């Protein structure tokens, strides 16, 4: 069902990197690079989009019985259910919960009849990526695409005049249309500068080398037992070009040998040149890959090269390939803003369904919780200080990863930790409440039910270092740098899950399956500070870190080998069916 037709996307879409987070310790003399926060001023109308301009968008396919999909994903991850860990294949998910073959054929025929073509689709039947021209789109949906310019960023984009409605011919097969409005809700605004004098991580006692990282979070023993991610695969979804030279230089200077070359998979037409070559995107993608390898140096990294507005498509691509059961993604946007824009809301629906179906297949989708504290909307609108969710990190079936500041000794051993927040810059780890989606059944335990709980999904689930002061050693564009943000926290956990998957396999199981329910169960059963560092200082500029689960750091940061052993013991005690 999957087709690849190289149609290049013209614009970055609605969801952009928010949690991008290569924020480097820069001396006063270093250039203070930065993005300027985009204001809420009205866009400039440039005129009708030329009729021959290529346009790509998604038809979000219907889920005939969504309640049953929710129920299935809950059952397959409930150790008390006979369906526990009886994950479906991507094709089974598509056939059981997606539209029928006949309905799919009807949609494809309609697309062709309108002079457009399907670029990509996946067996999970979440959405179809469609390409056409502005003229065909205008005709098909009875809209007029208008070119506009954001007055602050000068980014050009197009959006329909009026909302595009699903044509009657597609009723019952297509839920929504996403991607016709390509205005970014957010944009990249990192501070990227090489750290002066940092030629090798080994020479700087504060640098988070893989060796020190393993000591801080107690997984050096897992490495010493010969488990470094052998046979494991981790997927990274991001839009920047990642250079093999950077990875090689980083691995060599970090003391790692024989790191597997990164394999690249382009999703759809891939990001356009501007997006792929932006300094922020390159830094983000590079940091994600290097951080996964810092934790699981023998793992195979698959780099899903996708525009940020194609997150759902990229998740579908990973799941379809069944090549990895851990996916990490470090971007996002204000959830309330996505919900208030019809086009963005459609894309959100597509993304959430892709992640839910991944959970039904047993694939873990890890997403950073954001870098603007509880105020993710302020990132794109400096006047919007609502306490909000961060999409897609706050989806019910992600493993949402928040950030901390870690104090450690020069040899890397752990001293203390606080939730990451910078009051002078209104930056910090994201976390809060999903505005619409219910809390999954497995999210329970000490601290989960609190004064702010309202039955909706609470995030993050876990945390890892994010403050660049206790940040990560990376090499970008040939320059050794220290980086941070929750962007780094998510790939850290992705690498760790690869180690845990390897531990589970060594213990005779086929893997860890969807790990979020297991993490909550293990944390609830354990004494405080025995499998997670319970972070009780700091906050996210609104919610405070408290004993037990909290909105700043979730369950906390891992005590690596002890958490791994607890996960394996838990899975042994709840065997279920073999995981896929």
């Amino acid at each position, binding site marked *: 069902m999957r087709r690849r037709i190289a149609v290049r996307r013209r614009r970055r879409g609605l969801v952009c990197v928010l949690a991008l987070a290569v924020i480097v310790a820069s001396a006063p003399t270093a250039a203070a690079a*930065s993005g300027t926060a985009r204001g809420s001023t009205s866009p400039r109308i440039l005129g009708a989009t030329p009729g021959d301009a290529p346009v790509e968008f998604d038809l979000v396919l219907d889920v005939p019985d969504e309640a049953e999909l929710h129920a299935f994903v809950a059952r397959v991850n409930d150790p008390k259910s006979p369906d526990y860990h009886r994950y479906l294949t991507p094709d089974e998910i598509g056939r059981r919960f997606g539209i029928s073959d006949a309905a799919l054929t009807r949609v494809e025929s309609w697309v062709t009849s309108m002079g457009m073509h399907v670029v990509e689709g996946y067996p999970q039947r979440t959405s179809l990526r469609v390409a056409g021209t502005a003229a065909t789109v205008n005709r098909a949906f009875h809209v007029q695409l208008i070119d506009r310019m954001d007055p602050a960023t000068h980014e050009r984009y197009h959006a329909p005049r009026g909302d595009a409605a699903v044509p009657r011919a597609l009723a019952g097969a297509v839920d929504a249309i996403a991607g016709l409005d390509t205005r970014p809700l957010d944009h990249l605004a990192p501070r990227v500068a090489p750290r002066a004098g940092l030629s090798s991580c080994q020479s700087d006692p504060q640098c988070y080398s893989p060796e020190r990282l393993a000591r801080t979070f107690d997984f050096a023993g897992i490495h010493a037992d010969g488990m470094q991610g052998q046979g494991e695969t981790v997927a990274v979804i991001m839009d920047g070009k990642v250079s093999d030279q950077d990875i090689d230089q980083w691995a060599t200077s970090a003391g790692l040998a024989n790191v597997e070359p990164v394999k690249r998979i382009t999703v759809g037409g891939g990001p356009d040149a501007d997006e792929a070559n932006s300094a922020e995107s390159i830094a983000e993608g590079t940091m994600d890959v290097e951080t996964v390898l810092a934790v699981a140096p023998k793992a195979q990294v698959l780099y899903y090269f996708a525009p940020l507005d194609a997150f759902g498509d990229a998740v579908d691509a990973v799941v379809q390939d069944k090549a990895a059961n851990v996916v990490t993604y470090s971007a996002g946007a204000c959830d309330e803003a996505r919900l208030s824009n019809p086009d963005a809301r459609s894309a959100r629906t597509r993304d959430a369904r892709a992640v839910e179906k991944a959970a039904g297949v047993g694939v873990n989708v890890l997403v950073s919780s954001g870098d603007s504290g509880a105020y993710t909307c302020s990132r794109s609108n400096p006047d919007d200080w609502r306490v909000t969710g961060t999409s897609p990190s706050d989806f019910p079936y992600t493993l949402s990863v928040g950030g901390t500041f870690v*104090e*450690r*000794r020069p040899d890397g051993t752990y001293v203390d930790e606080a939730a990451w*927040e910078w*009051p002078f*810059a*209104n930056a910090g780890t994201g976390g809060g409440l999903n505005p619409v989606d219910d809390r999954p059944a497995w999210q329970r335990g000490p601290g989960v039910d609190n004064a702010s709980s309202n039955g909706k999904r609470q995030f993050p689930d876990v945390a890892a270092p994010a403050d660049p002061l206790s940040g990560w050693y990376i090499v970008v564009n040939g320059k050794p740098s220290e980086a941070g943000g929750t962007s780094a926290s998510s790939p850290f956990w992705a690498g760790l899950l690869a180690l845990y998957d390897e531990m589970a396999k060594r213990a005779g199981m086929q893997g860890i399956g969807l790990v979020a329910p297991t993490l909550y169960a293990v944390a609830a059963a354990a004494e*405080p500070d025995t499998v997670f560092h319970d972070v009780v200082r700091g*906050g996210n500029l609104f919610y405070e870190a408290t004993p037990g689960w909290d909105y700043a750091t979730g369950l906390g940061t891992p005590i690596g080998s002890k958490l791994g052993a607890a996960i394996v013991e838990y899975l042994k005690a709840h065997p279920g069916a073999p995981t896929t």
Partner: protein
Amino acid sequence: MTTAPAAAPPYVPAGTTPSRIGRWKIVLFALVGLAIVVVVANVVVLIGRSGPAQPDCQPDQACLPQREPAALGQRWTSSELGFSFEYPPDWLQVVSQDGRSVHLQIPTNSFESELWVSGVPASEASVDQLVQQRRDALAQRVVGLQEDNDSPDRIVSPSLGYVHGVGGSYSGTLDSGSGPSAPATVAIIAAGDGKVNVVLSLLLAGNLDHSHIQNYRIGSSRLVLNTMRWR
């Protein structure tokens, strides 16, 4: 360090053996003693286990660090009040100090800067009073200093050393002595642990755009904020 010599064991004359009853008493005492030791040890372990729920981490109270920090920069300690923090020596230099306060600045000629950290016993001034005092002091040098809540540099959640406090962002024009010279932004935060109240102010003056202000605010203050210890 010297050690005292170990006390000699009590002398027991050879051939003197305790009576049966005496031996039974010894066994009884030993068992009672052992039971006491076991009970005390369990109590100690339980107290130790309930560590995370120590008084500092009670709801609605500041949760203060229990352990010594790992050195990330240069530590400055108030000799009178005991609070301390680290600062990045590549970012900041000490200009002046006394037992309660320190004045640091960013070593550059491109713009004016002043990071001021000062403490008082909580009985002397509240955190609100400390903010007002700093604001009044800075108003002597910054013409038209007023709170700037519309600024993207506003402070939405003031805290110091992970203790929530009060504060705000202000703007005006630096008075060079010969008249207003450059746009100035000021951030002030004060917080306390119940015994000591501390105020931190950061003045930046020059032709700096929002991103520069953010960058210098972060660079100069994040280590101070992260590593503040109250005693």
